[in-house]
């Protein structure tokens, strides 16, 4: 069982991601802001990071951190190659465009949890 931190300001999406990932036997931590997310970060095996947060931009937050061993999957409703490339440049392992399918989400998570395990 891995611990996944969801940093997402949309309360409904956070709830639904929690219910969905709990069904995959993961422990879930939740934060609605970048600041709250940073406080929980050390406890996580993997981070799902929304890019547009009320207190910061998820990618700016990534750039402010030292190089990460915890895999970070960025998510946002912005589509396009630019944002995907920026996410990888900022240190995220993957970028998911909302809306994503459950398979896209679980595949991405499993890829990086397997690697870490």
């Amino acid at each position, binding site marked *: 069982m891995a611990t996944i931190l969801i940093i997402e300001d949309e309360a*409904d999406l956070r709830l639904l991601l929690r219910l*969905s990932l709990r069904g995959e036997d993961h422990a879930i931590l939740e934060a609605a802001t970048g600041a709250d997310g940073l406080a929980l970060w050390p406890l996580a095996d993997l981070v799902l990071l929304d890019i547009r947060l009320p207190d910061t931009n998820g990618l700016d937050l990534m750039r402010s951190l030292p190089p990460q061993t915890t895999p970070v999957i960025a998510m946002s409703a912005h589509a396009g190659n630019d944002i995907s490339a920026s996410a990888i440049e900022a240190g995220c392992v993957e970028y998911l465009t*909302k809306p994503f399918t459950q398979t896209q989400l679980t595949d991405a998570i499993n890829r990086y949890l397997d690697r870490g395990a």
Partner: protein
Amino acid sequence: MGGDVTDDQSHTGQGIQAGSGDVAARFARVESQFAEVQRLAQLGSWEWDIRSNVVTWSDELYRIYGVEPGEFEATYEAFLDLVHPDDREMVNDTVQRAYADRASYAFDHRLLRPDGSVGWLHGRGNVQADEHGEPERLFGVAIDITTRKRSEQFLRDFIANASHELRTPAAAISQASHVLASGALSADDRALAMEALTRQADRLRDLSTTLLDLAALDEGTHPVMLGALLLADRVRAAATACPGIDPATLTIDIGADLTVLADPTDLERVFVNLLVNAHEHGGPNVSVSAHRRGAEVVVDVVDDGPGVPDDYLHRLFAPFGRSRTGGQGSGLGLAIVQRLMTAFGGNISYRPAMPNGSVFTLRFAVPHGDDPDHRG
């Protein structure tokens, strides 16, 4: 006979003089029309006589490039200097290729004027060769397409923002459908997921309706039924329709008999949007006050929040102008308010409140007569 000759010569001479005067006048007229056509079409032209290495620009071309004829030497290098640095290589390559191939060219490029402003041009040109195939003359036109490019950019941004706003509830709905289909939820979690699904479906519906309303308002096809309405009633109805707002934080100071010219449903919508905006971005305390000033009713919606950041002022009433600053709104609320106020024959403006906060001032037309319509 001699007299005849003299008469004839005199006649002929006068004829020639009159004729050359005609040609000169006609030429001057054509030249002035040509300049006028260029000015109206925002189209400039240039010519490079290669043998004499003389470059000639039309007056309109100088205007488009933001340079003065006396202060600017029209050479190819000077022209390239005015091309935006990011487009310079493309422009030079295209012209050089056309020159080598004795061909014509067409491109869009940006220019960076001496005053620092950026414009967009559509340029077309043609290389003319002599009988030996050697280039002897280049002729080209440049059309100022800045307005068109700005509209295209606005549309691209609008679509990107609208897509972003639609994708967010779509993501929640997609997750909800998966979670609810999995069947592994407790009754409580199932109820929570259903509630979230309903909320996000409503949000998606509201957003798509608002986008269509915005388009209809911009096209002038949104139906408004203007009538005399009691302002205080509508503001109170709007406050009741905003469930997240604590009544203790809202002060309404409007004379009971004050009427404005507006559409009943849309007037309520104006105040719902402003109260939600004040609640999300301003607050915590909001006041709505109104008074009659001449042929207008002036309404101030004031909050004691942080005010609008300077960076956002220029797009405060633009669609999605503030959506990136957080909050759960669609980013269309103030855009809708501004367009509705215009449809009522009024307007809205913003100024910072002192020492902090926001003041949105609405100006309504006063209905003819003093007979308030109690419809709706």
